[in-house]
């Protein structure tokens, strides 16, 4: 039997307002790496805008720069007073234009869209989060939720891999998580520096160190696809069942509601059926070259 996909949240933005961007104002801009290549916006709705459902961990919004274009951006945090934090890496024309915006600017927002990380399924079990590069951003709300409801989970292991120490995002928060006794944070970089005292090597080696109950663990993986494939292999080698592994996919999402087909992978629309998928749903796609 084919593995089932996750169901989008019933209270998500579909269909009302799904195609109409609402004005949200940038309250603050925070560079997440020294180069400002990765940055986080905290957004609040403009007066008169009904914010609707708050994004669940793993969901994304479409952010529209008027006159430039629209991009899907994952939610990296929700503030206590209803602000939404989006973390973006400037890699294309729209995100480079986003990099230039300052607090006070207004952008269009529609969403939230897509499937969420299956936190409820992880209740009472160990939770292993594997993040590569900026893939930590979509997993950060899971970490926040797990720490808020710490008693709901067994061991919480966070494996984070970055290109170099200077490319690590959320450094303050990583330090705070490392200082906690109830979260096992493991960080590695592909390339160390003379000053770096942490681990060097790929993020999969952090999985190989175990420290979680292979029979009772849910794993959530987010990063470049090749990293997710190797991470899933490592998790399976550690004894996890494929159906207990979830991955977050990225494709060129345009409509965000499963109409346009730009983000289609096989029978799945990443915007509607994902971005979070059970690994068995995506595993065949990982084996198809140039898909």
């Amino acid at each position, binding site marked *: 039997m084919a593995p089932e996909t996750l169901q989008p949240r019933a209270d998500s933005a579909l269909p009302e307002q799904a195609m109409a961007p609402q004005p949200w104002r940038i309250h603050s801009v925070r560079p997440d790496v020294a180069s400002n290549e*990765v940055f986080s916006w905290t957004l609040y709705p403009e007066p008169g805008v009904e914010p609707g459902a708050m994004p669940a961990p793993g969901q*994304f919004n479409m*952010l529209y720069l008027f006159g430039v274009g629209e*991009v*899907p*951006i*994952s939610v*990296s945090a929700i503030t206590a007073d209803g602000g939404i934090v989006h*973390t*973006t*890496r*400037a*890699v*294309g*024309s*729209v*995100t480079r234009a986003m990099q230039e915006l300052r607090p006070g600017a207004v952008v269009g927002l529609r969403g939230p869209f897509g499937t969420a990380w299956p936190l409820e399924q992880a209740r009472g079990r160990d939770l292993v989060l594997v993040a*590569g*590069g*900026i*893939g930590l*951003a*979509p997993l950060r709300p899971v970490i926040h939720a797990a720490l808020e409801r710490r008693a709901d989970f067994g061991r919480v292991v966070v494996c984070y*891999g*970055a*290109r170099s120490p200077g*490319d690590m995002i959320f450094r303050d928060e990583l330090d705070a998580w490392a200082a906690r006794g109830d979260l096992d944070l493991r960080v*590695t970089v*592909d390339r*160390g520096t003379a000053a770096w*005292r*942490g*681990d*060097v*090597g*790929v993020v*999969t*080696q952090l999985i*190989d*160190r*175990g420290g979680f109950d292979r029979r009772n663990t849910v794993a959530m993986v*987010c*990063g*470049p696809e*090749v*990293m997710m494939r*190797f991470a899933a292999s490592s998790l399976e080698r*550690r004894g996890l069942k494929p159906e207990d592994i979830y991955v*977050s*996919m*990225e494709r*060129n999402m345009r409509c965000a509601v499963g109409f346009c087909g730009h983000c289609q992978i096989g029978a799945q629309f990443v915007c509607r059926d994902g*971005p979070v998928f059970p690994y068995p749903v995506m595993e065949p796609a990982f084996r198809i070259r140039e898909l």
Partner: protein
Amino acid sequence: MNELLAIIEQEPFFEDMAPEHRRLLAACAAKRSYTAGTRLMRDHEPTETFWLLREGQVALESPLREGRVAFQTLGPGDILGWSWLLPPYRASYDARAVTDIHTLHFDAGVLRERMEADPAFGYVLMKHFAALIVQRLQAARLQALDIYSHGGPGHGT
């Protein structure tokens, strides 16, 4: 011996080995601790040892003209050293204790003799090390791909 066997039985690297093979390994093992900075292996020097790292961190380094660069670190549960398996039994990198470390140290010279004398045991241990080497090779390839420089989820276009 019983304590060493108990440690070996708890380690994933040895978990699917037969009890008699674990006993053989325990007979060649000893608990050893090293202070931070200790050089456990040196590039191109003979090595007749491998270690199971139980606590602490070890850096694998390549010596360069400008100094040394760490290309990988090992932590608890990791195995250090496979150069003892195949001629010329020389290390191909440096290994340095980054922190104080606690290990199980294996006399690989004796183990190799046991592997020759007992091919079933030799095959099992060779399979375990082959899997470890493949795992490290795949990790090295992934590292060389520089995957994070090409984007990743969550950042749009």
